C-alpha cells in the first residue's frame, strides 16, 4: 500500500503530554487521496501510482484534466502527484483511497513542501554566514567578506556561495515524529516545523531513514 499522502499544511500549535511536557506540532490536513492511475513496468516502463487530492469543481479544471479523471472514474481533484513503487511491491487499484491512517503515532515521516520565498537574500540568511559584530568599530555587518585568493586563481571559484534568490524551492524535512493521527478528521499532527506557508501543499511519506521505534518511555 501507499506510504505517502498529500495534504495541506495547517498552522502550528503546541500540545501537552500527561507529565506536563510541551510538544510543538504542525497540523496537516492529510488526504483523503484517491488513486487515479496505476503505472506498470510493462506499460509505462516504471511502477508508480498517481494520487489525487483536494476535490475541485468541474469548471475550475481544464478539459484534458477532466478527461483524465473521467477515464479513471474518479471525481475531479485539484492536485495530482505521482508516487513511485519498488519492484515486487503490490500496486493498489484505480479508485482506491489513501487515508492518513497509513501512519500511526510514533511513526517517523519525511515532509516535502515548497518553502516560502525570501526574495533576494544576503549570505547570512541564505547560507548562514556569521557576519561581523554590530559595533566595536566594525564597518560592515552582514557582508560575506573575501570571495577569493590572489593572482592565482585570479577568479572566483564556481559555486561560491553568495547573495541571491532564496526560497520557493522544494524542501524535504526528514525524520519528523507523528504525534497524533485523527483518521476521522483526516488530521496528522507532526512534531516540529514543516516547509511552506499555511495552506500550502505538502507530501507526507514514511521516513526513508528512520523506522518507528517501540513505544518510548514517558
Amino acid at each position, binding site marked *: 500500500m501507499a506510504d505517502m499522502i498529500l495534504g495541506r499544511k*495547517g*498552522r502550528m*500549535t*503546541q*500540545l*501537552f503530554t*500527561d*507529565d*506536563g511536557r*510541551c510538544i510543538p506540532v504542525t*497540523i496537516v490536513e492529510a488526504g483523503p487521496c484517491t488513486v487515479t492511475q496505476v503505472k506498470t513496468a510493462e506499460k509505462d516502463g516504471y511502477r508508480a501510482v498517481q494520487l489525487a487530492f483536494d476535490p475541485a469543481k468541474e469548471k475550475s479544471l481544464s478539459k484534458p484534466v477532466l478527461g483524465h479523471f473521467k477515464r479513471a472514474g474518479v471525481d475531479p481533484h485539484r492536485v495530482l502527484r505521482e508516487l513511485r513503487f519498488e519492484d515486487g511491491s503490490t500496486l493498489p487499484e484505480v479508485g482506491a483511497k489513501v487515508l492518513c491512517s497509513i501512519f500511526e503515532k510514533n511513526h517517523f515521516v519525511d515532509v516535502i513542501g515548497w518553502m516560502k520565498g525570501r526574495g533576494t537574500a544576503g549570505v547570512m540568511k541564505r547560507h548562514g554566514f556569521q557576519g561581523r559584530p554590530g559595533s566595536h568599530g566594525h564597518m560592515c555587518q552582514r557582508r560575506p567578506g573575501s570571495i577569493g585568493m590572489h593572482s592565482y586563481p585570479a577568479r572566483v571559484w564556481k559555486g561560491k556561495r553568495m547573495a541571491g534568490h532564496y526560497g520557493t524551492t522544494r524542501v524535504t524535512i526528514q525524520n519528523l515524529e507523528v504525534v497524533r493521527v*485523527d483518521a476521522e*478528521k483526516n*488530521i496528522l*499532527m507532526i512534531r516540529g516545523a514543516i516547509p511552506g506557508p499555511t495552506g500550502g501543499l505538502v507530501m507526507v511519506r514514511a521516513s526513508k531513514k528512520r523506522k518507528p521505534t517501540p513505544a518510548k518511555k514517558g
Partner: protein
Amino acid sequence: MDKYSVLEQEFRRKNPLPEFAPGDVIDVSVNIKEGEKERVQVFSGTVIARRGTGLGASFTVRRIVQGEGVERTFPVHSPKIANVEVKTRSNVRRAKLYYLRDLQGKATRLKERMDNREAKS
C-alpha cells in the same frame, strides 16, 4: 478562533483558572515530581504579564525572594499548573508591568482595587 481550534480543545485545561489580570497577587499551585513522589509547590507573587491566546497562552509572576527578584512564566494550559488563587487585585494602567523590575521596596506597591472584597470572598 480558526478551524484548527477544535483540535486543540482536548488539550485545554479541564479546570479553567479563575480570572486574573496583571497587577493581581496570586498563588500558583504547581505539581512537582521528586523521584517517585508528587507534591504541590506554591509560587505566590504579582502577575506582571499575560500573553498569547489558545494553547500557547502564558502568564508571568514576579516575587521578591531574599531580596532578589524572581520571575516565573507558566503556560496557562500546562497540566503541571494545579490551580491559581487570586489574593488581591490592583488598579493598574498598563498590560505589562515590566516597570516593577526597576523599582524596589515601597515603590513596587500597587493601588488596591475597591472591589477587592468580592475577589476575596
